């Protein structure tokens, strides 16, 4: 498990997605990025492939995506969560009729 190694996540919500090892935390945890959210992941949940990318330690997501493009690895664009401001329904104020 070297830095830049391409592997496939085999468990969890992002299973079956390609990811790149960006940093090695200790012998059980690594930092991964790529088609998955950048987060710490257990080595057991990763299946290594033979390709290794040339990226620096703790490379940023943009750099990782660039390196993946070079290796012609398909990048899945993740939809950015649209921050929708919750518009409170204005309660119609009762019009006080003066009843003249």
């Amino acid at each position, binding site marked *: 498990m070297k830095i830049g190694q391409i592997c*496939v996540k*085999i*468990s*969890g*919500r992002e*299973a*079956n997605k390609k990811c790149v090892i960006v940093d090695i935390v200790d012998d059980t945890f690594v930092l991964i990025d790529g088609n998955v959210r950048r987060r710490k992941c257990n080595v057991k949940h990763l*299946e290594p*492939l033979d390709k290794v990318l040339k990226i620096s330690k703790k490379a940023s997501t943009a750099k990782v995506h660039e390196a993946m493009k070079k290796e012609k690895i398909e990048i899945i664009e993740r939809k950015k969560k649209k921050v929708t401001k919750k518009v409170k329904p204005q309660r119609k104020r009762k019009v006080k009729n003066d009843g003249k």
Partner: protein
Amino acid sequence: MAVKHKSRSLRRVSRKLPGGKVTIQYKKRKPGRAKCSNCGKPLMGVPRELPSKMKTLSKTEKRPERPYGGVLCSKCMRSKIIKEVRK
């Protein structure tokens, strides 16, 4: 007792009424647990509800949010993905 209550396909549930009396209510039996299509073990994260109630549940309440969620258990899913990757 109504004739339809004689059949054993209804579940007998004893309930205490506000007046203190105890009555028997008849409820429909729940369907069996969802099973993994590969190893046959019961699936996690899939509720056992009658179809009419399942409709009221939202999509994420009816199955886990994983590839093959609600079809394969997590072990079978992992081994399947590993096989595909190793090819």
